[in-house]
């Protein structure tokens, strides 16, 4: 690799990192605004015009809060928990293709940090690591509510990872590749050979299962049992304060961003948009519009996460497990069989 390439990659990483943080930051603001609108309120509007400086004010508040480490907590793990949570949340973005490629002079820049051929598996690996942050934090707090929250998080994530994996298998049977870049390329444009190219139109059931599991994996309502206030005080982060609490909450929003990006890439065509090659634009412009299209999709999914949160009440824990094991897993397996049968017939 040349030096120029290394520098380009480095810049790309920094940009993506910054974007994830900014998106997560403004998701906290958007969450409050969206919640307010759903409840016929106005929402935060005092910090800056329309309250757009609210995330900065929240961040500043988090930093200035008193830092508490409980006496009986194991200090090392107590700090390791949130650090791990935010770390795993951030590294997921490495394999997501944010756009095609830009040509600047003689350089062709791929808008993806790395195109590993097992991209989907990598995402899964990172997602399952995410539960360690919660687990370690909950255990290290030495508090029964935290521990219960952590156990819930762990068992919930493990159960839903299975159906998520199974729903992905059906998708992989169609795409025949694990590389996210290739999956995105296969969904080129919007319409070809008499059918939509986006995977959601070929795998509607798979997408449904995937999105339900995504809600469970990111611990969002209706599956936010690990931090269920009514039963567990604050769940796994009961004992946390100051920026460590901030990291946990922040990690949740980054996870939401990444899983929205994954859903957009796997099922909604990633950076592809309708008529992308009939507009008579140069390659670079198509790429830039593609990035905007991808972000529009991501923002829609983030909005959807919030929309669901302010609509549906929380599941009971046994309902959650029932849904995961007795409904989603059989459905996902049926989906695989169905995909196989239909694939064989139409080949």
């Amino acid at each position: 690799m040349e030096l120029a390439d290394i520098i380009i990659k480095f810049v790309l990483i920094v940009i993506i990192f910054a974007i994830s943080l900014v998106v997560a930051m403004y998701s906290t603001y958007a969450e409050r605004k969206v919640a307010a609108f759903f409840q016929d309120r106005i929402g935060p509007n005092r910090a800056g015009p329309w309250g757009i400086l609210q995330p900065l004010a929240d961040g500043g508040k988090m930093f200035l809060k008193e830092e508490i480490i409980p006496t009986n907590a194991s200090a090392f793990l107590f700090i390791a928990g949130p650090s791990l949570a935010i770390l795993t949340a951030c590294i997921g973005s490495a394999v997501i293709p944010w756009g095609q490629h830009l040509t600047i002079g003689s350089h062709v820049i791929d808008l993806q940090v790395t195109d590993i051929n097992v991209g989907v598996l990598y995402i899964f690996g990172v997602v399952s690591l995410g539960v360690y942050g919660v687990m370690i934090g909950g255990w290290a707090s030495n508090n029964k509510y935290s521990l219960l929250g952590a156990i819930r998080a762990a068992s919930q994530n493990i159960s839903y990872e299975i159906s998520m994996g199974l729903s992905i298998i059906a998708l992989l049977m169609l795409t025949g590749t694990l590389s996210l870049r290739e999956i995105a390329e296969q969904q080129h444009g919007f319409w070809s050979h008499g059918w939509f190219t986006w995977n959601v139109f070929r795998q509607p059931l798979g997408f449904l299962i995937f999105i339900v599991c995504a809600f469970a994996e990111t611990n969002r309502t209706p599956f936010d049992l690990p931090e269920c206030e009514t039963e567990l005080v604050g769940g796994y982060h009961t004992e946390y304060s100051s920026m460590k609490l901030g990291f946990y909450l922040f990690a949740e929003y980054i996870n939401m961003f990444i899983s929205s990006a994954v859903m957009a890439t796997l099922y909604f065509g990633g950076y592809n948009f309708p008529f992308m090659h009939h507009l008579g634009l140069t390659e670079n412009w198509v790429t830039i519009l593609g990035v905007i299209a991808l972000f529009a999709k991501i923002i829609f999914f983030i909005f959807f996460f919030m929309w669901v949160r302010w609509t549906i009440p929380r599941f009971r824990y046994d309902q959650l497990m029932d849904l995961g094991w007795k409904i989603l897993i059989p459905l996902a397996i049926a989906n695989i069989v169905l995909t196989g049968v239909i694939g064989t017939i139409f080949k």
Partner: protein
Amino acid sequence: MESLSNKKKLIESKPLNFWERAYLPAILSGLSITMKHFFRKPVTISYPEEKREFSENFRGMHSLKRDENGKERCTACGLCALSCPAEAITMIAAERQKGEEHLYREEKYAAVYEINMLRCIFCGLCEEACPKEAIYLDGDIVPADYLRKDFIYGKDKLVEAPLNQ
């Protein structure tokens, strides 16, 4: 048992049918309901820029009245303090001196008159008790403050502004 009031309603609890058990239709209808609210006009009133209209008998901050000649009406009889269920009122009485007739209507007046707004429950009993029609709760909402001592309102805040000055 026979219902006497005729208000009894029989509630059927049928087992859920397939579509109800499938969650999704119910979730979709829920999502559409919340979406309707999303575009509705917010009901928020941005206090203090906007104010809601008070009802006619709203009881707000107290004011100590003056009579038509601009003299303070209160005679420091203490009936308001006595009637106050929250013990929010205290006062120190003083005798009117020669030359102060234009200031105080009666021979005795309140040199110090304090209401603790943190204790007051805005019941309006002081207003009802006053024989001199000297105190009315016709003001605005008592504003927020940082220190407890700043909620003890003295005559400087309570007495009406003097006439045409």
